[in-house]
């Protein structure tokens, strides 16, 4: 197997406090691996055990198939380097000296540093863009520069595995990106496996190939960013309500923390007819304002479908390119019937999703408050040759209100639901 690091049934406790419990993990070569989790969830301890700084009390860690307990300090050091959150030195060393320390596991004590060692350190400095700092004193450097020098030292160790404990927590945005880009580049160029603790979930999402979510010493979820970084998981692990969307850059989950401390559920159900991204901002807005949402009919893999999934919106879904089956239609109808209000987003309409409009003319839905978002003129969104437009005109006739955008959407919903309730 391609498994570079294998962790099996690992447990660890400090005194009587269990810090890691039955952790199983398998890490592939060349993978950028992110550990996320609240403070005290055992991430740093896990890194320490994997890097041999702590001995596993139960369970086994294999590095390239070898049990870490049976490995000599030097062989571990040739295989793995560790980058801490920040490094401060009490005594002043030159940058080039600090980088050269990375060669220690290879140095013969009596011969000292060879020309090869110097060349490797030199290259590590070039790679991390620290060559110009070589004669500077380490302590005079800025946080970002220091972290680059420590990365150069780690590279000079010629490791296959790079372990980083919150490597960017002390840095400003520019340097965070700089350091993470550098680590990512190492993974790609040198087939390095990087395991890092990151606190910023969006950074974890943007850089991580694989994400492990930890809580209370246990692994709660692991998988790709899309599989792990969902609103549901984040709520469970960080006890925080978030809204998850898709970053337009790089197509990765993007997590928005909600400015309102807690979402108070209003107990009002809203069904959204959308698709192709027309519903994304509406879902985000209404979700953060405490409405219970459903959506449909959405094609699996559609942008609105992804956002619905990530925010635990009930979905009437359909496989792509088959139109809307009776089943999906029935589901959509059921969700709409259960809702207190329906929102029709400014979606494009073609033959395959026309039935979404037909739904709104069903007898049993006639009394439901319906709010239409009409940001573009409907004619431009009609790809059915006019059929949809006719339906649309009929639907418009029975709508509660028509809005040009979603700014005042929640007020309109509340108003419509209110007057409806009074009836």
């Amino acid at each position, binding site marked *: 197997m391609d498994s570079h690091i294998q962790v099996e049934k690992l447990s660890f406790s*400090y*005194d009587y406090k269990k810090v890691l419990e039955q952790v199983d993990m398998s890490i592939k070569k060349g993978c950028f691996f992110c550990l996320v989790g609240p403070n005290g969830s055992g991430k740093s301890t896990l890194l320490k055990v994997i*890097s*041999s*700084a702590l001995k596993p009390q139960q369970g086994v860690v294999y590095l390239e198939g070898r049990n870490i307990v049976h490995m*000599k*300090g*030097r*062989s*571990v*050091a*040739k295989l*793995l*380097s*560790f980058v*801490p959150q920040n*490094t401060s*030195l*009490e*005594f*002043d*060393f*030159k940058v080039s*000296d*600090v980088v050269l*320390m*990375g060669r*220690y*596991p290879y*140095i013969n*004590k009596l011969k000292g540093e060879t020309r090869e060692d110097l060349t490797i350190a030199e290259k590590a400095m070039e790679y991390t863009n620290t060559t110009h700092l070589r004669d500077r004193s380490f302590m005079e450097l800025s946080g970002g520069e220091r972290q680059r020098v420590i990365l150069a030292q780690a590279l000079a*160790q010629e490791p296959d595995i790079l372990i980083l404990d919150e490597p960017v927590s002390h840095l400003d945005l520019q340097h965070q990106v700089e350091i993470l880009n550098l680590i990512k580049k190492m993974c790609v160029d040198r087939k390095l496996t990087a395991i890092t603790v990151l606190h910023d979930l969006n950074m974890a999402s943007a850089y991580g190939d694989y994400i492990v979510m930890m809580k209370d010493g246990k692994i709660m979820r692991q998988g790709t960013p899309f599989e792990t970084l969902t609103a549901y998981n984040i709520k469970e692990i960080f006890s925080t309500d978030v809204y998850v969307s898709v970053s337009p850059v790089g197509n990765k989950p993007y997590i928005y923390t909600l400015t309102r401390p807690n979402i108070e559920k209003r107990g009002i159900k809203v069904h959204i007819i959308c698709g192709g991204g027309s519903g994304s901002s509406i879902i985000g807005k209404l979700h953060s304002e405490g409405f219970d949402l459903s959506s449909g009919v959405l094609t699996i893999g559609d942008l609105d479908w992804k956002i619905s999934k990530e925010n635990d919106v009930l979905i009437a879904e359909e496989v792509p390119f088959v139109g809307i089956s009776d089943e999906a239609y029935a589901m959509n109808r059921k969700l709409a019937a259960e809702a207190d209000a329906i929102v029709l987003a400014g979606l494009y309409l073609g033959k395959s999703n026309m039935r979404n409009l037909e739904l709104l003319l069903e007898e049993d839905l006639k009394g439901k408050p319906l709010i239409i978002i009409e940001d573009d003129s409907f004619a431009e969104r009609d790809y059915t040759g006019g059929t949809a437009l006719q339906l649309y005109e009929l639907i418009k006739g029975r709508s509660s209100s028509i809005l040009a955008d979603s700014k005042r959407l929640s007020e309109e919903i509340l108003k419509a639901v209110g007057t409806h309730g009074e009836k």
Partner: protein
Amino acid sequence: MEKSNKKNWLVPSILVVLLAAALLLAAATGAVRISTKEIIEILTKGTDTVNASILMDIRLPRVLLAAVIGAGLAAVGGVMQSIFKNPLVDSYTLGMSSGAALGAVISIITGINVSIMGIETTGVFAFAGAVLTLFFVYSLAYTRSRMSINSLLLAGVAVSYFLASVISFLMMLNNDKIEHIVFWTMGSLSMATWNEFYLASAIILPATAVLLYYTRELNILVMGEDAAHHLGINTAVLKNILLITCALIVGVVVSTGGTIAFLGLVAPHIIRLVAGSDNKKVIPYSALLGAVLLVLSDTAGRLLIQPVEIPVGVMTSIMGGPFFIFLLRRQKAK
């Protein structure tokens, strides 16, 4: 490259010249002046004059012992500062010197002072005192598998004071031996003999060589113990080797010259100001500088208010104290 090579040789060359000059000066001056020419004559021809016996029997062993002890103390200071990543640590601040002094005092009081194959029990007691104190202080500072440098310094100073008062108490109870004890607590080289010099050299020189052997690892320890571990160093073993070697040197120093404060603290710092923090340079250069400083301090102590001799430990404290305060303030400014 060539330029830096030249620079690399500059500092040690100056130190060697200084040491030679200090030794010569120390040998020449005192109650009786002996000219350089005469010194060379005595050394090469072995003349049998009064001056010759002053030089050979009294001054030379003392001056050479000062050089060896000074070198050992300074090397120990440099090593301990790196191990504990703190500029204020040395054998004195960690209580080792006081522990060694107490060991020596106990041996004097109990009268267990036999010499087996040239090794005096006083020395063995001093060594044991240094090691025990070190590990006691160390264990005080080490809680929950982590060591805080602040608690180490605090524990060292506290234990130091405690041991000093135990020594004072013992002095009170043993009035008859008070002069002998004062000799240990103040640090003095006035009783130096060739035997002591040979014994001190036989232990301090190889022990210093051990410290020099580990200077590369010492550099890495400055990065932190975790970093050292991740570079493949067995930090626990390394620290034990280094600390026991340091304790050995301190034990020998105390048993031959008493407690000599501040030298181990000051010498490495002066070197760092001049030559940077690379321990491959700091440790050997500090040893040379320590030798120079102790020879000069001892000579100054002999000359300043003749015919009274100021103990060398008092001299180093008078000069080292202000420097220590200067370091503290500099660190605060950081």
